[in-house]
């Protein structure tokens, strides 16, 4: 057994050189797969069903009726309340991430329709500073919740985030309380809130709006948790169980309602709206 474990470890540690562009190594099963095959499959690994991270824009296409999405609160931008000192300034880092991701911030919000039913949608994008939640993401979620409340329509969020944004310090931490308070009002007034968890969802996002849905759905194999696996490993000094913090692990422990394939998400959301509103 010991020998097997060792060789397995060696296999994953070995750096496989993969030609740029054509082939992709699956983050979950580590198989090297032809990129076109993954793209054709809605960016889902054909070997292990891991759902690759996709952009907020791609998600909009996938989730809502064609042409129905109208962005709201797009003019919101971070400033630098801490004058945060890093290798590069926070302002430069924001600029760098805008260029890299083609996004203004780590979340897009808007009005849209799912099979003809109006909804408010917030989608996080991991490509923008690891999907971290600072003041702008917090404000977008809070305003989206308030808009859903006012229009008496469902709120749907899709999380993909490393957690609170360090560069905005205490302001980021406080966003967790703000968005949770806004969700509280939604629940109090009988609005439907569906929370979708995509890979990865951690920290301050898990510990706020992501875990407060009436219905919580995760994509297969997504990593979801409060503390990051590396931090846990360093703390407890033991290996983490297989499948730890995967969507299926959360389902097994009663933390989420459903694990649903990307291909079935829209249909399932539509069904929930149909049955509850």
């Amino acid at each position: 057994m010991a020998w097997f474990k060792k060789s397995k470890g060696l296999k994953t540690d070995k750096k496989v050189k993969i030609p740029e562009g054509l082939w992709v190594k699956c983050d979950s099963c580590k198989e090297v797969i032809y990129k076109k095959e993954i793209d054709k499959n809605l960016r889902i690994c054909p070997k292990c069903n891991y759902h690759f991270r996709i952009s907020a824009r791609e998600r909009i296409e996938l989730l809502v009726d064609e042409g129905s999405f109208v962005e709201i609160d797009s003019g919101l931008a971070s400033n630098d309340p801490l004058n945060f000192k890093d290798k590069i300034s926070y302002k430069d880092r924001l600029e760098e991430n805008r260029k890299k991701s083609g996004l203004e911030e780590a979340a897009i919000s808007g009005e849209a329709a799912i099979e003809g039913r109006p909804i408010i949608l917030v989608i996080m994008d991991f490509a923008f500073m690891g999907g971290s939640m600072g003041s702008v993401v917090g404000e977008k979620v809070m305003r989206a919740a308030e808009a859903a409340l006012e229009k008496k329509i469902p709120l749907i969020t899709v999380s993909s985030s490393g957690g609170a944004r360090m560069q905005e310090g205490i302001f980021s931490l406080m966003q967790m309380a703000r968005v949770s308070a806004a969700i509280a009002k939604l629940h109090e007034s009988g609005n439907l809130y569906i929370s979708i968890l995509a890979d990865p969802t951690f920290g301050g996002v898990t510990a706020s709006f992501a875990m407060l849905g009436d219905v919580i759905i995760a994509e297969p194999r997504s990593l979801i948790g409060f503390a990051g696996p590396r931090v846990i490993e360093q703390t407890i000094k033991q290996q983490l169980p297989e499948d730890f913090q995967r969507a299926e692990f959360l389902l097994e422990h009663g933390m989420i309602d459903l694990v649903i394939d990307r291909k079935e998400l829209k249909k399932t959301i539509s069904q929930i709206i149909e049955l509850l509103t």
Partner: protein
Amino acid sequence: MIKCYLEFEKPIEELELKIEEMKRISDGKDVNLSGEIRKLEKKVKDLRTEIFSKLTPWQKTLLARHPDRPYTLDYINLITEEFLELHGDRRFADDKAVIGGLAKIKGAPVVIIGHQKGRGTKERIRRNFGQPHPEGYRKALRLMEMAEKFKRPIVNLIDTPGAYPGIGPEERGQGEAIASNLMHMSRLRTPIVSVVIGEGGSGGALALSVADRLYMLEHSVYSVISPEGCAAILWRKNGELNAEDFSRASESLKLTAQDLLRFKIIDDIIPEPSGGAHMDVEQTARNISDRVMQTIEELKTRTPGKLVEERYRRLKKIGSFVEEA
């Protein structure tokens, strides 16, 4: 009791050792050093005032974690009458890193809750170094909902390095437990006053601090991530981290009570005696209870509906961004 000195307190330690030495020499002998001793004592006092008036963020972080710093139970013992600790979350366990119960402060009944660190190795482990599991947050919420039911104000004392990162907490929904506290605390129809007494460690601290008024002790800290964690993210690639890195990170994070007051995240700073809370625990406890009860008296004049509405508006204001039309 052996006093514990932090690195930046070394000049104070040296003088205090000198005073001890002189006292020992003059004891039972003809030499009278009392004049000298008094002079040195004055010098210590001035030096302490001087050092503590310009502590760096990292020094404040170390002070907030000082092994002699008073913990929640120390304050509860000093400021409450008839404290009756209540246990358990009614779901899984009784988390020893969070304590709570019924009590009276200055004769007025309250529900008081706080993170609890331990003193001494055994007790520290029993309290899990003040790092709660989900059960701790669920117990806190259970007690807060009880407070709402019986129209008792809630007092929260915050002092934690953060929520515990372990397998069990993840299996049992650490994120959900914190989120649930944030959500429900925002709607509780009874006054909530929270005080950061030591370390305000990220989400684990936030889960007890949604309030109508949030105060911090003068030398406490409150941050989204520890200076060590921040330094690791920023500079780990350059090799081992040291106190200088932590110092830089703590400056970047703007985590002192003074920073948070400037940002209007907290409502006020509760003063500590010269040298920090542990130098005069009774005085610090009085400062806390005076401020907390004065605030509760003020909050009691509002209807529950108004209280909840104002709490929401307080939260809504927190954020730093620009908006283009």
